[in-house]
């Protein structure tokens, strides 16, 4: 499909009635743009003749009542793109913001912005990779509406202007709303469609860059927003899943269990375990949890967290590991260094636990498969289901709902394949919902990792050598759709944030030890940076301490020469946190900075530790340079959210294994931050005007090291493994030592 599209890069605009789901479109202007899969990915609006919906991949609809709907091929999971993406279009369109609406695009590669067979809402990429495309869509539509008005009035288009959802002709004092013009614009001949619409300069922006209320808030506050779990399909049954407790295990007594099912329930074998189908979810869940299931051994049988740590440590000692970074001769530089530091750091597996438990509603019919699911990628969902069932993609329809949190978990399709198997088995539409326990115990976890770090300082206290060997399972190995593990043997997700350090240091060496431990791993908000920022920013703090320098000034000095954006971000966080001023008695602070997903974020955490050793995070200051940005209020919200997500993990987050099984099961033993633990968060955006960066993830990496560095300042204890809750911070411990 992709190849075919790439051969026809200038196919373009379609006015044909929308769309795959069969819904007819009321009269009005419907613009579809084909975005070719070349590296420029520009929105090309070309001749309508010969264009087909299959070659059109994003849509803008202006109804005759003036309502403007954009169909977005990305998923809204809290990160605010259902507001930011229309803001970019509305800016160029000169739309009346109150008339903008967003709907999830129907599924299919024809809606991909990327031109690839699938597109994932991930990597904090929705705005940064689509900004110009969205601008072009808005600008094209605006020019078409102006042309339609000009022709109607018999004036030159250049003598008209568009503003607030209407076209004006000043000389004759005429005005026409977009709704009135939509049909005429839709009927324009193809040569009246601009191919290279002029885009606004930044100084002309009226909406972009202004704090703007989210479009989805009213529905979410009313309880009307439809999440996957809320979907209702006539004749639907409910299913609850029970997974093999050990990863890779299978049900050993399925036939016997299936024969003895209570009335009104059915047992179905699904990938990873079994599912019970009943007329209500409660019934299905009750029966599923009570099943006397026997399970075979699996990939993690007998594995414990202590053994995992040993395996990771052993992996770092292997000879001839793939090298991610090599600069100078760190071994020699370390031998000659005035001060040498060595440290081992580690972090555990983490679950995503989005607030909405995993679910999917599937209807496998003779003519095809219909799915309703909150997924981070409806196109990937379709592809995976097609590969699994051999049903062609054209016969699969995915309805994307709101996501009750994604964080990387909803990039996976395990629950979708299960729902498909269940619906197929019972011949009815089925809504599968996982219990929270199944979610915590059967995730694709943030990988556990362990790193050996070495650093050397010269007589001036400046770093001369840095080496890191990180042992970590590979996420990409399983993701063959993303190209799998590259030939270099380096999983970029394992080394990001460690292999590309910005601090001045002439001799560097970073190696990757892939560790296969049998526990499923996946993308967790900020991915490798979630652990590597903790490793690097803690170790830099250790070096600063060894050099007897202020941690902010030490970092600043090492960035000053080549990384002005980093310096600005550091200076900003130092200013807003009053870094130079002493804190009240008992309060201490720590600082960290990390770049991820194209944005630079520095954070300062202010903490105290009670006499009993209980840490409290009082305040967090955040400075972010995400380049050009759309909705500053969303950026603030994402920094708040990113900090809280990282803080939950840093303070208490751990998925541990015993006898091959996950020990945690729900929010009592895999807790998230509580309202009472919420620090005050102060955010400042550094306006660099650089290329747009992501905002969904970059707030997360710096928080763990900012807090542990603050705890070091408070207690003199260097926390080298997470979560913090596993460490004693009580003052009397010092006395004993």
């Amino acid at each position, binding site marked *: 499909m992709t190849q075919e599209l790439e051969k026809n890069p200038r196919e373009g605009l379609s006015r044909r009635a929308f769309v795959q789901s069969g819904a007819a479109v009321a009269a009005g202007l419907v613009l579809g743009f084909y975005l070719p899969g070349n590296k420029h990915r520009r929105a090309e609006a070309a001749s309508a003749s010969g264009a087909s919906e299959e070659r059109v991949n994003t849509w803008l609809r202006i109804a005759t009542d003036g309502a403007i709907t954009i169909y977005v091929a990305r998923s809204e999971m809290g990160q605010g793109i259902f507001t930011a993406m229309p803001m970019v279009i509305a800016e160029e369109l000169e739309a009346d913001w109150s008339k903008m609406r967003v709907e999830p695009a129907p599924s299919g590669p024809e809606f991909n912005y990327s031109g690839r067979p699938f597109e994932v809402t991930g990597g904090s990429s929705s705005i940064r990779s689509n900004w110009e495309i969205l601008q072009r869509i808005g600008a094209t539509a605006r020019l078409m509406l102006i042309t339609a008005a000009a022709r109607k009035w018999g004036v030159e288009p250049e003598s008209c202007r568009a503003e607030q959802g209407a076209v004006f002709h000043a000389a004759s004092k005429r005005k026409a709303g977009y709704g009135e013009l939509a049909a005429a614009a839709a009927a324009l001949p193809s040569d009246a469609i601009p191919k290279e619409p002029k885009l606004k300069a930044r100084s002309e922006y009226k909406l972009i860059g202004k704090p703007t209320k989210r479009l989805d808030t009213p529905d979410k506050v009313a309880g009307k927003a439809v999440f996957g779990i*809320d979907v209702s399909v006539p004749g639907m049954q409910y299913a609850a899943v029970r997974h093999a407790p050990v990863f890779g295990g299978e049900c050993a007594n399925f036939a016997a269990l299936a024969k003895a099912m209570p009335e009104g329930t059915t047992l179905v074998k699904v990938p990873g375990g079994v599912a019970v189908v009943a007329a209500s979810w409660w019934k299905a869940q009750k029966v599923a949890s009570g099943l006397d299931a026997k399970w075979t051994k699996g990939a993690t049988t007998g594995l414990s967290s202590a053994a995992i740590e040993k395996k990771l440590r052993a992996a770092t000692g292997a000879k001839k590991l793939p090298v991610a970074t090599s600069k100078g001769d760190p071994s020699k530089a370390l031998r000659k260094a005035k001060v040498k530091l060595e440290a081992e750091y580690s972090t555990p597996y983490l679950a995503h636990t989005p607030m909405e438990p995993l679910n999917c509603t599937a209807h496998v019919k003779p003519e095809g498969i219909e799915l309703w699911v909150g997924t981070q990628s409806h196109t990937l969902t379709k592809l995976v289901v097609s590969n699994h069932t051999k049903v062609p993609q054209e016969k699969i329809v995915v309805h994307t709902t709101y996501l009750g949190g994604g964080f990387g978990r909803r990039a996976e399709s395990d629950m979708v394949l299960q729902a498909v198997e269940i619906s197929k088995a019972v011949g009815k539409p089925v809504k599968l919902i996982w219990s929270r326990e199944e979610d915590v115990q059967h995730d694709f976890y943030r990988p556990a990792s362990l790193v050996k770090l070495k650093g050397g300082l010269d007589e001036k206290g400046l770093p001369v050598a840095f080496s890191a060997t990180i042992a970590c399972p590979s996420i990409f190995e399983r993701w063959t759709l993303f190209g799998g593990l590259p030939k270099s043997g380096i999983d970029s997700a394992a080394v990001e944030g460690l292999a590309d350090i910005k601090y001045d240091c002439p001799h560097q060496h970073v190696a990757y030890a892939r560790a296969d431990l049998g526990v499923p791993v996946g993308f967790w908000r900020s991915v490798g940076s979630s652990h590597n920022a903790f490793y690097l920013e803690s170790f830099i703090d250790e070096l600063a301490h060894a050099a007897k320098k202020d941690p902010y000034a030490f970092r600043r000095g090492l960035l000053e020469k080549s990384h002005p954006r980093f310096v600005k971000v550091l200076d900003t966080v130092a200013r807003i946190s009053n870094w130079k001023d002493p804190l009240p008695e008992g309060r201490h602070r720590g600082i960290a900075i990390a770049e991820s997903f194209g944005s630079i974020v520095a954070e300062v955490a202010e903490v105290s530790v009670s006499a009993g050793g209980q840490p409290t995070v009082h305040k967090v200051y955040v400075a972010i340079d995400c380049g050009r940005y759309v909705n500053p209020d969303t950026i603030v919200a994402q920094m708040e959210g990113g900090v809280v997500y990282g803080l939950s993990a840093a303070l208490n987050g751990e998925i541990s294994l015993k006898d091959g099984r996950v020990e945690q099961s729900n929010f009592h033993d895999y807790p998230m931050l509580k*309202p009472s633990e919420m620090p005050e968060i102060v955010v400042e955006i550094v306006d660099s005007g650089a290329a747009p960066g992501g905002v969904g993830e970059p707030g997360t990496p710096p928080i763990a090291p900012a807090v542990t560095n603050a705890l070091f300042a408070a207690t003199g204890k260097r926390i080298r493994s997470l979560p913090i809750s596993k460490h004693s911070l009580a003052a009397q411990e010092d006395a004993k030592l």
Partner: protein
Amino acid sequence: MAKSLKVNGREVSIEAESDTPLLWVLREELGLTGAKFGCGKGLCGACTVHIDGVAVRSCLVPVSAVSGEVTTIEGLSPDNSHPVQQAWIEADAPQCGYCQPGQVMACAALLKAKANPTEEEISAAMTNLCRCGTYGRIRKAVQIAIKRNAKGGA
């Protein structure tokens, strides 16, 4: 078990196994999906509804034990006009939004009981979890709601 319930001002008759939590009856039998399933153990509060004006975690309440009048987010107001909903909109509190109906219901029950709650009372009442980290905005929204409530609505 057949039973009649008063939900959002209407008498409804339902048919469910007696141990079925109120949450699932609301969601599956009555189609009121504003109350959400989050943990099934009363730990997160996504399922918060009111029984006789008091906030309860409906995933823990067997439907057979419900005798009072149930109010869900759908019954709080037909048009987001409740002062707490207005406050949530003003603070632009939601991100993913999944926990927010429960948060709104927790706050609405608090303000019904105490028009001018203390910080301690707010902390004691607002314990629902949010994975997106909207607590700061919720805190702000609660303060806005208190003010709006005092003015007698929107």
